[in-house]
Each structure stands twice: as C-alpha cells, then as structure tokens.
C-alpha cells in the first residue's frame, strides 16, 4: 500500500475550529480499519499538538502520512519557538495565558501527553523562527 498523505492548515487563535484536522484524521483512520487503540493515540497526540499551535504559534501546517505499520504526523509552525524543551516536557509547566487557561487548557500537559501517546516524538525548535514536531505512532 502506498502511504496516504493528508495536509491541513491550522487556524491560529481559533478555539472553536481547533481539532478539526485531528477529527478528520481520526475519521480517516477509522474508515481505513486501523485498530481502535491506534486511532485513539493518534487523535489525542495530534489534538494536543494542534491545540499547542493555536495557543502558542498562531496556527501552522500539519502533514500526516498514513502507512500500514505507522502514522507520522509533522506539525510545523512559525511561532516563537520553545525556549527550554526540558521544562516544556515537564507535567504542569505552562506558559499559556490566562484566557487560554479559562478554556481548560494551559495545564502544562500538552507535550507530556503527546509523548505519552506516541512511540517517537522529535522536536525541532528555534527561537523566533518556529517549531516542528514529528510524531510517530506505530500500529
């Protein structure tokens, strides 16, 4: 099977539409017959990354490659970058503003959740340039 490729633009600072890309990928994986646990892990990891893009980076792009044995999600933004990845990976550490917290986000669980539900997480970030997350989930 040739890999299936999907691409999305994530609208920054739009919390109503946040998650649409994740929902579309989840629906596609379900229709393709991927195991429920795999679909759930992809949905959770991608949603958290999508929300991070909306909170911190004014949106960005998502490219998803669906292979029989793995799903690779690449999220690229042109946001401020992550000053300290080790801190950002700690549960409870957050730089989200108060208005985001009032929506139930910004609890400092985004990146830890992504790592928890993925098999591999690579973070490339440069201050003032942007961040690219590559999330791999094996089937």
């Amino acid at each position, binding site marked *: 099977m040739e890999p299936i490729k999907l691409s999305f633009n994530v609208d920054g600072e739009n919390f109503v539409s*946040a998650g649409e890309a994740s929902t579309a990928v989840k629906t596609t994986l379900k229709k393709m017959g991927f195991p429920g646990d795999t679909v759930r892990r992809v949905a959770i990891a991608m949603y958290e990354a999508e929300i991070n893009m909306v909170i911190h980076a004014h949106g960005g792009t998502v490219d998803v490659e669906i292979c029989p044995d793995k799903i690779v999600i690449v999220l690229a933004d042109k946001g401020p970058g992550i000053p300290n990845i080790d801190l950002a990976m700690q549960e409870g550490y957050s730089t989200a503003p108060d208005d985001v917290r009032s929506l*139930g986000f910004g*609890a*400092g669980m*985004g990146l830890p959740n992504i790592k928890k539900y993925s098999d591999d997480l690579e973070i490339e970030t440069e201050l003032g340039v942007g961040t690219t997350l590559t999330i791999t989930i094996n089937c």
Partner: protein
Amino acid sequence: MTVTELAAACGFTPIHIADETAPIKGAYACDLLSWVIGRAEEGAALVTVMTNVNVIAVSVMAELPCVVLCESVTPDEVTLQKARDQGVSILSSSKPTYETCLAIGKVL
C-alpha cells in the same frame, strides 16, 4: 450501563443523546481538558462544569461517549451543535461535581 440508563438511574436530565446504546464504562471528573484527554479511560463519562466547545472535541478524541455537566450549567449552541455533529451525549446534573460522581459511582 448505557448512557440513557445512566441518566435515568442518576436523575440526570438528557440535553442531547447521541447514541442511546453507548456503553458507559466509568467516569472521570476534571475541568482541565489536557488532564482529561491524557488520563480519562476510553468509554468514561466526563464529569465537568466546563461548557465550551473544546469539551466536545476532547471527548471525541479520547472516546468519551458522554459529558455530564454539573450544577445545572448549560452548553451554548456552538457546543451543543458540535455534540450533535460529533456524536457525543450531554447530560445535566443539578448537583455539584462530588455528589454527581457519588451518584454515578453507586450505579456503575
């Protein structure tokens, strides 16, 4: 126990029933959505006072078939429409979170 059986047994008011036969396997109470998506077990009812549209998105991603809104808080139309579109049931409890969880715990 199905979502409709849960509503009847606990005295919750159905605001929207997406799937009457959806099984409820447990419950998870929290208002921080990243905690919910990271820790709630698949099939759980989400007990919360949060009513924004992201509550439904998180429920969809984490495979939570039902949201129980405590203290009679009501969802806005955007949230309700998303619940209809995405197949998530919403129940309303007049009680605070603790008492709502106690009621669920007695019947599950």
